[in-house]
Each structure stands twice: as structure tokens, then as C-alpha cells.
């Protein structure tokens, strides 16, 4: 791997920034160069949130991207707004639980993940939906090893959140990689 540019977008509160941060931690534990750059604006609940993560063997120049190798969209507006950023052959991850639209491109690999459905049915906790998506991204697009992600969990989920680690690890493996159930 030379460089992977990952763009994750959704509503505020969906854990979009957290998914990116966990990837950044894991990449650091694999001794990669990494940058995490959020969009920021006036603090408004339910506003849009997105972040860019770049992982590279070389020093990273700009932490911003105009195109990306992996695009994860957690809500409908983000699919419409950012789909063009993905390079041909790139991996698109769609939160199928709340996005009814299909993607419009044929030159990319599309992965539909029923984040909320899996979180409720398999894990019994709706709040693990973002970890289901993170697991899907790792499983399909590589990005980082699960061992490094476990270390990332241990760095981020501390104190009262430490008890979430085992459930989140379970969530990482919960997506079975099936396509769009609506097909």
C-alpha cells in the first residue's frame, strides 16, 4: 500500500468522526503515517459531519483530498454530495439502514451495509451501528488489521467506555458481506 484516502460522511451524532479517528489510531499502531481532518463549523446538533483519513507509507503532504479511494456514506444527502469524489475502482460503503437511494455509478465497487439492522438483531444495541460500518470497511477494503483496531479501541474507549470494547469487537465481525438485500 502506498496511500489510502478515506472519506466518511453523515449526520452529526452517527459516529462519523469516531470511525475516522479509530482508523487513524489503528494506522498509527501499524507504524503508518496518518492524518485525520474533520469538517468543522458552528456547533449544531444534527448538522452534517465528515472527515478525511489519509494513511500512507510516505510523509503526508495535504490532509485534504478532492478524490478518495474509499467513500463511506452514513446518510442520503452525503451519497448525493460526495459520490463523485470516489476514484474509478474505489470502494463505496452505503448505510443501507437509512439510505434508500442507489448509487449512480457503475465503475466502482458498492457495499450495502444495514448498520442499524445488524446492530439491533445481532448485537442487541442500536448504538453499535457505526462499529458495524467500521467492520465492513475493514473486512472489504483492508485498510488496517483487526489487531491494530483492537489497540485503537483500547486507546479510545477508556474509563466508563472500556466495557464497550468486547461488544464493539463483536460488531466489527458482524457484517457478512452480502450485497443489497433489496436486490
Amino acid at each position, binding site marked *: 500500500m502506498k496511500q489510502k484516502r478515506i472519506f466518511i460522511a453523515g449526520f452529526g451524532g452517527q459516529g462519523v468522526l469516531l470511525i475516522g479517528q479509530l482508523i487513524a489510531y489503528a494506522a498509527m499502531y501499524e507504524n503508518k503515517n496518518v492524518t485525520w481532518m474533520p469538517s*468543522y463549523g458552528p456547533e449544531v446538533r444534527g448538522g452534517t459531519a465528515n472527515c478525511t483519513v489519509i494513511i500512507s507509507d510516505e510523509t503526508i503532504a495535504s*490532509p485534504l483530498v*478532492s478524490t478518495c479511494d474509499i467513500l463511506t456514506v452514513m446518510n442520503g444527502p452525503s451519497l448525493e454530495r460526495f459520490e463523485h469524489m470516489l476514484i474509478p475502482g474505489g470502494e463505496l460503503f452505503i448505510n443501507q439502514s437509512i439510505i434508500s437511494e442507489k448509487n449512480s455509478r457503475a465503475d466502482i465497487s458498492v457495499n450495502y451495509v444495514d448498520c442499524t439492522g445488524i446492530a439491533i438483531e445481532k448485537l442487541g444495541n442500536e448504538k453499535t451501528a457505526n462499529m458495524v460500518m467500521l467492520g465492513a470497511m475493514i473486512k472489504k477494503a483492508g485498510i488496517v488489521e483487526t489487531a491494530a483496531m483492537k489497540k485503537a479501541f483500547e486507546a479510545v474507549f477508556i474509563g466508563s467506555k472500556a466495557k464497550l470494547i468486547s461488544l464493539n469487537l463483536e460488531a466489527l465481525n458482524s457484517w457478512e458481506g452480502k450485497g443489497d438485500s433489496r436486490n
Partner: protein
Amino acid sequence: MKEKKLMKGNEAFALAAIRSGCRFYFGYPITPQNEIPEYMSRELPKIGGSFIQAESELAAINMAYGAAASGGRVFISSSSPGIALMQESISILASVQLPVVILNVMRGGPGIGSIQPAQGDYNQVTRGGGNGDYHVIVYAPNSIQEAMDMIAKAYDVADEYRNPVMIAADGMLGQMMEPVDLPEDKGGIKAGDITKVKPWALTGHKDMRDRIAMNSVWLKQDQLEDYINSYWPKYEKAEQELAEYETRSLQAAEVVFVSFGSTSRITLEAMRLLEREGIKAGLIRPKTLWPFPFHAFDEISAKTKQIISVELSKGQMMQDVKLAVSGRWPVGLISRVGGMLLDPLEIVLKTKEILEVR
């Protein structure tokens, strides 16, 4: 092995200040630097330091003035409009010759402007901003790691020169995360040791010495002139000794970019793209904005045909670039303002336009 940690810029800056011995922080919320007062309010009380959420930037910088005059190691942070509010007291800090480290997480202006990254404070930070004859020493980091290292250095330079030192970061560096090596913890100065380390500081005369009075007012203008002339040599020394810069690929460069801070990273990306198209580009990156690294421009090769200032302001830095170039090469400008960022492809496109027109 050093401690490696993934940190958000603003938190890393605050941590670097604490590890440099800062025990006093006074702040007022302003985006995009709010993680700094939040971090300081959590961490300083744990190590015997003090945090005050001031009623305004005016109050914050004056709390810093009082604490610095008393011999405390002080950190102040704000963003462009907040720094503008502080300028009167920064002028006083320079006049009274007090060491304070000030972080400016720059955003779009003028006025209240936008909260996105910008460099329109170039004139504000390099040309004083307050009234009278003084300079502020200004460092311009382009990564979180470099910002942490510069903060540590800024404390030493501020003490050595007895002058305010500013770190000009921006919203991008403040908000992004990168892995960093944590700097060594120098520990704070004990209150009882202040007189030893800073004999000029206000501590009360303890009936051991004459009273110390610090003032920036001089009712006799000839005395004020003498006073300014007495400290001015330190600025001449700073111009000789403090200017720092980085160069990339100057030898065979057809075009040389001048760019600082986070913009220099985007410029580096553009240079890679230009290389693929057969255009050789070099870079001069000022790491200090005052003193500006004028002598860096003597390293530019005879093969170079064009200098381009790449900045997030309307050519504010270009004025210094033109001074440095002194008519030896044509100087162009690629810029975005108001909080809009440059895109590497945009730099490539505009560079080609400038080269064609020439």
C-alpha cells in the same frame, strides 16, 4: 523510544505548552481553538497551575500580562478576531519586555470573518498590530509535530529575548489529528524560585531591594525614545539569528513557490503533480514570519524563471517575497481567501497559467 500519540492539533498545542512549563492559561472561547481552553481547564489544576475563563480576550491577555510580569510561564491562545482584540496589550507586553507565548489559530477575516482556516493575519502578526515600535517573533508550523516543537522553542526564545512570541497556526492544524512524539516535560518553576530565575519579576520587594515598577507610559518623550533605542538591538539580533526556513528542490526549479503553514503542505502536493507533468518546482517555506527569512532567496538557482507566493490571503506575504526577491525574478500570486482552501490541482492550473503568460 519516544511516546507516540495520536492527537488533535489544539490539544497537542496545549500539551506542548504544559510540558514547556506553562502553569498559567487565560482564555476566551473562539472557534477554531476551543479545545485549548477545554484542555487547559482539565489539566492545569491537576499540576498546581491556574486556568481562568476570562470575560473577554481583552481580559485574557491582561491576566497574562499580570502573570508574566509576576514571573509565571503563561500561554495564551485565540483566533484572528480575538488576537486583534489583544493587540493593544501585546504592544504593552513588548514595551515592558515580558515573555509570553501566544498561539493564533488563524481563521478567515476581515472582521468576524469565517471560522475556516486562513492566513489573512499575516500583516496583523508580522507588522505588530498594536501601536508603536516593536516586533513580535512569529513561528509558522506546518504540522502538529512542528507546532509542538515550536511552542517549546518559543518559550526559550521569549525568555531569552524578553518579548512576546507568537505561533501562527490555522484552523486546519488546530482541528486535524496526526501522530506526534510527545516533547519532554520540563516541569514548572516553583513560586519560590521566581526571583532566582527572573530577577526582574514582580514578587514584592521583601525589604531586600528597591521596588520594581513596570510601565509602558513615558510622559517625557526623549526618555521614551532613549528607552526604545535601548531595546532595539535585540530585534536586530533576532533578524540575524532567528529567521528559519525550509527549502525543497531549489536546484533545478523552473518555478519556486513560497508558502507557509498548512498551505505549504498543499503546495507540496501540487509540486508532486507538476513534476509528473514535467514542470520542476521548488519551495521556500518560511518557518518564521518575523523575522522573514530573506536570505533563503539567495539559494534560488539561475535556472529559475518565476517565483510564486502561495498563500491564503490577498498577497500579504507576497510583499515580503518581493522585498526578498528585489526584482531578480518576477513574482506571482496564487491565493484563496475568506476561509477557502487551495486545492493542489488549482495550484497546478494557476501555475501553468502564470508560466504561459510570462
